[in-house]
């Protein structure tokens, strides 16, 4: 009969003291294997010290300890898809927790940094909405959940609970509140799909619940923060192309941009047009990798130039 054990919520955040392990069994097993149980505990301790370090990178700063082998610094024009495949998996557990620290502690992230500086685009009065995902070091997902000292709300663990992506997607968008009326388009609400490159599932949002680019981008930021791939904006090469407009400036220091498909089926950078025009013509949203969005910019600029 085992001794009831004390575990704090996350469990592995401290070395398992040997008295807390079902000692008889551990000792028996250890004796059988010729290994002392305390050895394991020490090893765990060593792991955990490292685990408890949660590092965050601010945009524009190089995150420490990037392992060279699987390079994260993606050049804007390179399609480092292989790297992406490794990074995609780190839907960072606990990054959510880390984010709030970062967001609250480090001042405003993302949108507002650039929103403040580059106010208008083409004179149309809409704030910039290039979606900037705060950079977080790609912390090993499983270690991370163990290392966070129990916060008020629960940290996210990758792949836990074991629910398939498509279910998470539909559950996230379809769990009803009493007055929710889900509809494809038209009267009460305007549901559109939002996808993010590399995220395993898409979300739906109701455009009618937002009144400005700032609102929508902060909502999206929250929604997709758990998918952020820990990448700083470093390594965006060939900036000479990019200095042509405010839009292009925004691609500096960011891995992602927010784009939308309009009524004509064209993909545009969000922020071009007045808000009402945007909600009228937007059919879906996509948080795209900066490298993919480069092709969009000239067209957008042409469109906005012609509008001016």
């Amino acid at each position, binding site marked *: *009969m*085992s001794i*009831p*054990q004390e*575990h704090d*919520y996350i*469990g*592995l955040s401290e070395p*398992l003291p040997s008295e807390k392990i*079902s000692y008889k*069994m*551990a000792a*028996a*097993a*250890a004796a059988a*294997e010729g*290994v002392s149980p305390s050895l*394991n505990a020490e*090893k765990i301790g060593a*792991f955990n010290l*490292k685990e408890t370090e949660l590092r965050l990178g601010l945009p524009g700063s190089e995150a420490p*300890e990037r*392992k060279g*082998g*699987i390079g*994260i610094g993606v050049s804007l024009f390179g399609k480092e898809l*292989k790297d*992406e*495949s*490794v990074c*995609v*998996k*780190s839907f960072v557990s606990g990054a959510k927790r880390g984010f709030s620290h970062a967001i609250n502690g480090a001042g405003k992230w993302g949108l507002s940094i650039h929103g403040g500086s580059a106010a208008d685009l083409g004179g149309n009065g809409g704030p910039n909405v290039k979606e900037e995902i705060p950079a977080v070091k*790609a912390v*090993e997902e*499983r*270690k991370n*959940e*163990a290392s966070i000292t129990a916060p008020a*709300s*629960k940290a996210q663990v*990758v*792949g*836990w*609970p*074991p*629910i*398939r*992506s*498509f*279910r998470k997607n*539909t*559950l996230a968008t*379809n*769990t*009803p509140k009493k007055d929710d009326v*889900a509809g*494809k388009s038209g009267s*009460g609400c305007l549901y559109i799909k939002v996808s993010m490159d590399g995220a*395993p599932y898409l979300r739906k949002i109701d455009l009618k619940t937002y009144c400005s680019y700032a609102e929508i981008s902060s909502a999206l930021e929250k929604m997709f923060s758990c998918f952020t791939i820990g990448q700083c904006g470093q390594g965006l090469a060939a900036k000479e192309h990019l200095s042509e407009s405010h839009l292009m400036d925004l691609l500096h220091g960011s891995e992602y941009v927010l784009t939308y498909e309009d009524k004509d089926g064209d993909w545009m950078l969000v922020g071009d047009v007045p808000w009402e025009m945007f909600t009228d013509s937007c059919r879906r949203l996509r948080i795209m990798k900066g490298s993919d969005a480069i092709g969009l910019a000239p067209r957008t600029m042409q469109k906005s130039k012609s509008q001016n």
Partner: protein
Amino acid sequence: MDPEPKKGDDSPSNSCNSHGPLHPQSPFPDEVLEKVLSFVDSHKDRSSISLVRKDWYNAERWTRSKLFIGNCYAVSPEIVARRFRRIKSVTLKGKPRFSDFNLVPLDWGANVYPWLVMFAKVYPFLEELRLKRMTITDEGLELLAKSFPRFKALSLSSCDGFTENGLKAIASHCRNLTEINIQDSITEDVGGGWLSCFPENFSSLEILNFSILNGDVNFNDLERLVSRCKLLRVLKVNESITLDELQRLLVHGPRLTELGTGSFPQELTPRQYEDIETAFCNCRNLQVLSCLWEATSVYLPLLYGACASLTFLNLSVAPLQSGEFAKFLAHCPNLRCLWVIDTVEDKGLEAVGLSCPLLEELRVYPADPDDRDHRDGVTELGFLAVSRGCPKLHYVLYFCRRMTNAAVVTIVQNCPNFTHFRLCIMTPRQPDYLTNEPMDEAFGAVVKTCTKIKRLSVSGLLTDQTFEYIGQYAKDLETLSVAFAGSSDWGMQCIMEGCPKLRKLEIRDCPFGDAALLSGREKYERIRSLWMSACRVTMKGCKLLARESPRLNVEVIREEGGNEDQALKVYLYRSVAGPRKDAPPFVLTL
């Protein structure tokens, strides 16, 4: 000798009768043996048959027409092609199951293309391809569409890699297609244009399931397709089809045995409401109903007419409240299998206990798996209520936020016939919420009482005691999933030394190290695969195991971060094909 010329020199009858003293004459002529074997379908039985003697092995390999490969890397296309000559149906499974939960990086492998190339050469009369957790690209689908003139059935479960272009190739070229069945796919957006590519004279479709794909399909093309496919019995549409459109597709109502609804529109006119109601009443023979998306209480009554003979109701993506759910259940007296979301809460499950006496399988999914909204979901009480009312229950998948040992003990006393018991207490390492003790006794009760248990997923706070129980009592256990459990290597050792029928073991975030890993060295060639992630296994341990076991592929998935000595994701499996040739750089085969 052998009357059938097409077999050639290699024929079983020729080879086995020529073996003199070493292989005494078989009591049966080969023709008889082969005829008898042609009735044996199960691949497990056939494997056993092939081990009896050489002539049986040969007879079996000539007569096998259905190929089942549970791990695509356990064998190679070449080996398969050499052994079997007349395959019509192939089932292939690829990635480890934890890939469903994003634990396996993209581009890990399991691409079916090399298999298709071989099949195109050796099995030109292939009719069915069923894939699970494999990657199939458009290139693969095109090869498939063009290489097999008799191709009939394509089933993709949890597969990725394709777009609508691949599906267009299938629709355009496969004249005899009877089945397109796409489930749980994890592809990027797949457009809906493929549905319009079936030729005008194409009418053989019997099973059409594209509910998981999110591209808009052209309704008119779909309507025409459905109306000319008079044999259609399974129709599961996606969310681009609304209920009022679906109604027009139900022209074959009485023939349908399985239906998946599309999305529910915002408003219906009274006339539309009536038409839909009538259409559903027309679906008299429906056995399986899946509801998508926003099935609200306004629309549920429309479906009542179709529920009289329903045996399987899938509401796993349609969140309902307990009241409307209970009303719905009252119309489904014959339910044997029910999938719901925990928005129905314990009250809803009480209704299950009252209304579904024939229930055999229950799955309760969480609406809020990441606990963002702090919903109650279901508890031990709901599970208890079901167990009291549904004595035939033998399959359960239950996501909850609290559970007690006492409840589980009672539940398995009420339902001792569990074969699949998958309990997920969503907070890792959570104890019995009343006694604060580990959940060891709960799972102990499961394995002691349910002697036929085949699949077990454990959760909650668990010490090594749980594994002692499992190792000792779960004699028929085949699949075990463990997460955030155990106290030491001993736990895993208990499993390795017990559980004689174990086939698949997946472990994550447990304190099992090299000693535990190595304790299973005798067992690994008898199981299909082992997954261990975020445990305490080191590269040293893995290398040692790999050295000792030449017929095992021991693979470590290297990811960013972590120190060089840790083996944070280990996947090992038996194989006659040797190390993978297509392993990406982040997969190290030791």
